[in-house]
């Protein structure tokens, strides 16, 4: 999410040019499996666990995380998706448009919600997501799982489960895809 947002900032229409790979596709899968085990350990199982992927980068990761959790505990995990465009604090400052329709499965009251996103950057997307979640009931606890924590937080937010911490500079971009995780720059077309 954070990366998508940046790809829309002016100057618009830039192209992501990858410079170096930080995780291969199998690395990502191993990190997901490890994080799944951590979720099970921390919560003493997966009772009441609901995974919510953040549009758009968090969705495929949330689905894969659900598969991994299902494999460990032999149960079906509920997965939802959340688009935080309507909750952002920078509406009017930068392009903000909903990417996809939110789909939250039922009332979240009493649930253990694990937010899943690809990259944690400023923390503003997560702040918006926390506000949004409030409208769906009072979760017992909300935890955060991200594949990449790249630093540069602007709010007091920290992840509970991290695939990999990567030091970056602000101008760089991190792309999480099917072919692993790459660092690169947004360059003019």
């Amino acid at each position, binding site marked *: 999410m954070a990366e998508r947002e940046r790809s829309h900032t002016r100057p*618009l229409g830039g192209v992501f040019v990858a410079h170096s790979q930080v995780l291969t596709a199998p690395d990502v899968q191993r990190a997901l499996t490890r994080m799944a085990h951590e979720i099970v350990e921390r919560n003493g199982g997966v009772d009441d666990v609901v995974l919510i992927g953040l549009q758009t980068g968090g969705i495929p990761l949330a689905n894969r995380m659900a598969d991994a959790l299902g494999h460990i505990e032999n149960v079906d995990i509920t997965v939802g998706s959340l688009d935080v*465009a309507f909750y952002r604090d920078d*509406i009017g400052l930068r*392009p903000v448009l*909903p990417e*996809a329709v939110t789909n939250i499965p039922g009332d979240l009251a009493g649930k253990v919600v694990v937010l899943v996103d690809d990259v944690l950057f400023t923390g503003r997307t997560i702040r918006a997501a926390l*506000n949004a979640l409030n409208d769906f009931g009072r979760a017992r606890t909300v935890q955060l799982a991200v594949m990449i924590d790249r630093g540069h937080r602007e709010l007091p937010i920290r992840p509970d489960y991290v695939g990999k911490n990567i030091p970056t500079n602000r101008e760089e971009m991190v792309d999480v895809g099917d072919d692993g995780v790459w660092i690169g720059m947004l360059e003019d077309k």
Partner: protein
Amino acid sequence: MTRPHHLLSVADLGTDGIAEVLRVAEAFAEVERRAMPKVPTLRGKVVATLFFEESTRTRLSFETAAKRLSADVLSLAVASSSVKKGESLRDTIETVEAMGIDALIIRHASSGAPHQVARWTTRARVINAGDGWHEHPTQALLDCFTVRQVLAERKGAAPEELGIDCFEGLRVLIVGDIRHSRVARSEVLAYAALGAEVTLAAPGSLLPPSLEGWPVKVAPDFDAALADADVVSLLRLQAERGSGSFVPSLREYTAGWGLTARRVDLLQSGAIVTHPGPMVRGVEIASDVADLPLSVATQQVTNGVAVRMAILFLLLGGEWPGEDSNV
């Protein structure tokens, strides 16, 4: 795609703009289905409704939409305002805008009034909520949104997955008082922009004086046109604009152009009947027909809120893809 500053006509949006409104409205329709259907998106913005002509659903719909976006809503009750003391439209608008209002939603009996207002305002966005015989853009947008929703439901797909391809070649029949109908003008523009084939059916006296440049056909035979239609858009006789004198009698109008139980049998199974409301049962639509499942008037009202949320969001909050603005 550049963001229109105002929404005065469906033409301000273009095909891409209409597609974007439908897409964003789908996200707001999800908000509406929530137990707590309110988002903080337009906190701090002020939206004013100025209705110089009466309205039930459009005004309530816009006000509900603005409130669900957390905007503050002011509504000018024209009957008890200084307009009655003789204040001009221009002075009224300047007064309202001087209060720091972000969007003006205007309905006026004179065609073109919102365009005139848009020329006077400096920062407020102007949304046309119906001007005379001219246009009613949000109504046409919510009609398209509702039609897509019904088509998607039948396919078992999410409406946003259909994009606008589902309108390509869709046969839309607009029936009734086209001459005096702003809804018809906006619908023709919207459906045609989306690739639908639009046909008009009305007694000659209720067709516009000229159809030059309209992307429409006129049905020679109403019953035959009904049998061909995928969507039938019924319009009300605009009695307040003198439609009564254009038809010999209401009974004769109903016999010739009303959607009676007999005519419903002519429709294909799966035809969708829309009506912008207010409905005059027994005139343009038989009362028991209005309550059949093929009539989606209630769904249109529900969708009106989501579509108007999308319009307010796109004009006041969001930005269009590829837009180069200096916000």
